[in-house]
């Protein structure tokens, strides 16, 4: 481990998929760290590689996936080099995962009490009775009402939100060091989503888990993340603290994402959609992959891939706009508004004048 604060270090990860059409370059040189106790959000559109990245952490890639290079360090070992058998000891115990669809991630023929107890029996060698009693505690923790009675119910007897609570209970029952949440609330209603997100934050504080949170919902990211990585076409194009990404974004793709969402304050007129569609990763474009959809593309964007430019110690963006020789551009109005706010947030608090007399 390069940094003792890190739980996971991913370096130069490259993953291809063999398909009939050819090699799909799904992950193209991705590096990131996950720090102890933090929530790292990975945002991006479908096909940007966010799910593939995290599945590789779990050793759950599809059979046609090939890891072309890179390393995933966890506890000083490279996960990529581990056998399936070794992964089975890590999966569900040290690294757990919550999937998007609570309808399909539970076993429909198994009572939910047993499903929650299973990892305890498997990883911690608990007896069934003991495991079930811990499962009951977990059910209470995730806020299922009347847990004793519901222990013996099957998944179909629960609503979507309740099922996702059960999935969370299964994922957290072994107190994993890392929790990967892949769009955990996308299938849920907003009020239920808010409850599940609060629950995840609460449980994170209690058991000190590091969370990798994958989502395309920037509103959810704003509420959950400590740090954010923005992915596009198999690469991370920008990363920084949540404030840096939302209030001082640098990459035109991040601008586009923030710009295309209506907020509750957005007035009429048309939304600023990002034109076009993401590139085909069978044959990734040369240079900046977002150039074809960007209003800010320059000649060099189609010729040479931009390296990461440093914005601050915690904030990096891969766009030629940050090159010292690049022309100064004005971001979209919404981004300018956000950057203004960022500047205000950075300004040191004015010294408090002592006007009150004792």
């Amino acid at each position, binding site marked *: 481990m390069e940094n003792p604060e890190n739980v996971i270090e991913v370096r130069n990860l490259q993953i291809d998929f063999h398909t009939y059409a050819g090699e799909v370059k799904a992950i193209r040189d991705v590096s990131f760290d996950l720090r102890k106790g933090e929530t790292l959000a990975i945002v991006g559109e479908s096909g940007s590689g966010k799910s593939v990245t995290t599945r590789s952490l779990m050793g759950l890639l599809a059979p046609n996936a090939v890891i072309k290079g890179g390393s995933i360090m966890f506890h000083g070992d490279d996960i990529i080099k581990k056998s399936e058998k070794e992964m089975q000891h890590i999966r569900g115990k040290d690294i757990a995962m919550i999937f998007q669809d609570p309808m399909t991630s539970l076993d429909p023929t198994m009572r939910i009490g047993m499903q929650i107890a299973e990892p305890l029996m498997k990883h911690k060698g608990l007896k069934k009775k003991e495991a079930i009693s811990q499962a009951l505690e977990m059910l209470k923790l995730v806020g299922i009402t009347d847990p004793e009675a519901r222990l013996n119910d099957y998944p179909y007897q629960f609503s979507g939100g309740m099922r996702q609570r059960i999935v969370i209970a299964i994922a957290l029952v072994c107190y994993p060091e890392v929790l990967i949440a892949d769009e955990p609330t996308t299938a849920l*209603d907003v009020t*239920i989503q808010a409850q599940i997100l609060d629950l995840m934050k609460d449980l994170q504080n209690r058991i000190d888990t590091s969370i990798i949170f994958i989502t395309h919902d920037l509103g959810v990211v*704003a*509420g959950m993340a400590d740090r954010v990585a923005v992915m596009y076409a198999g690469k991370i194009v920008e990363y920084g603290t*949540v404030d840096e990404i939302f209030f001082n974004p640098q990459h035109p793709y991040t601008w586009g*994402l923030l710009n*295309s969402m209506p907020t509750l304050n957005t007035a009429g007129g048309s939304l600023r*959609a*990002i034109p076009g569609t993401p590139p085909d990763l069978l044959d990734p474009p040369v240079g900046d992959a977002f150039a074809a959809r960007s209003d800010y593309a320059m000649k060099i964007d189609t010729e040479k891939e931009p390296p990461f430019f440093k914005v601050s110690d915690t904030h990096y963006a891969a766009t030629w706009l940050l090159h010292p020789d690049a022309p100064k551009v004005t971001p979209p109005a919404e981004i300018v508004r956000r950057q203004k706010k960022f500047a205000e947030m950075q300004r040191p608090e004015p010294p408090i004048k002592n006007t009150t007399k004792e």
Partner: protein
Amino acid sequence: MPEERKKILEVHHLKQYFNVGKRDEVRAVDDVSFDIYEGETFGLVGESGSGKTTAGRAIIHLYEPTDGEIIFDGKDVSKLHTKAEKHEFRREMQMIFQDPYASLNPRMKVKDIVAEGIDIHGLAKDDADRTKQVEDLLETVGLNKDHSSRYPHEFSGGQRQRIGIARALAVEPKFIIADEPISALDVSIQAQVVNLMKELQVKQNLTYLFIAHDLSMVKYISDRIGVMHYGKILEIGPADEVYTHPLHAYTKSLISAVPVPDPEFERNRKQVPYDESREKDDKKRRMVEIAPGHFVRASEDEVPMYTQRAIDAGLVTEFSE
């Protein structure tokens, strides 16, 4: 609200029950009434199970309503007896579905999917006209005519949703029910589809019933909004007003749960809980117009409370009951 505007759809006391009379009777839509004016977008929001989709389906007559009246363009939908009348109704009202993967027949070419309505209603003079219409429609929704001989699997989610929109537009409808049309799409693509729908609305004078759970998008696209919960509409009003000054406790709770892409806002967010038992006290409730065009489902003794809220919010200036 401008009362002189023409009501294109009137829903009176719509009830849609399933398993009627059995122990597992479900009152999916329970006494729902609202009007939609020509050329507007009416957003129907609610959580899953609130009955919003069922209401949409009952309106387009995919279900036989248990009770109530649906009046479309002056005619009672359940009293359309002749084949010609039913045909006409089905041409004038169209639907766009949520899942662009499940709603397009994978074994049909795009041109046949789009032209299905044209064929059924005999809207094309000959083959050349049919092809021309399909190509024009594809162009209207931002695809190109080369796409017409392809199959749905060759398209991305956003493109498929455009095909679904082209299919709905093919029969020149007046009224489109869009049931979660963007929920399955990526953020950047959602904006494209919403912009397209808005553009088409102006060009072709369409009226939309926009059903969704994404409140920020519904607010953005809708002129007026109805909030559904447990089969009932709890609040109806102008979109901006419902969002900035919700009167019903459920609406307040729903809006407070919407995540906002602003970390500072999120850090200070206070979610308002909602006590569901309040609705189940057996009091008689009806829709009461608290502020102009702003209705809340209330019992008689709750009216003063809502009126006070409306006064506090500046929606009404004086007691006018």
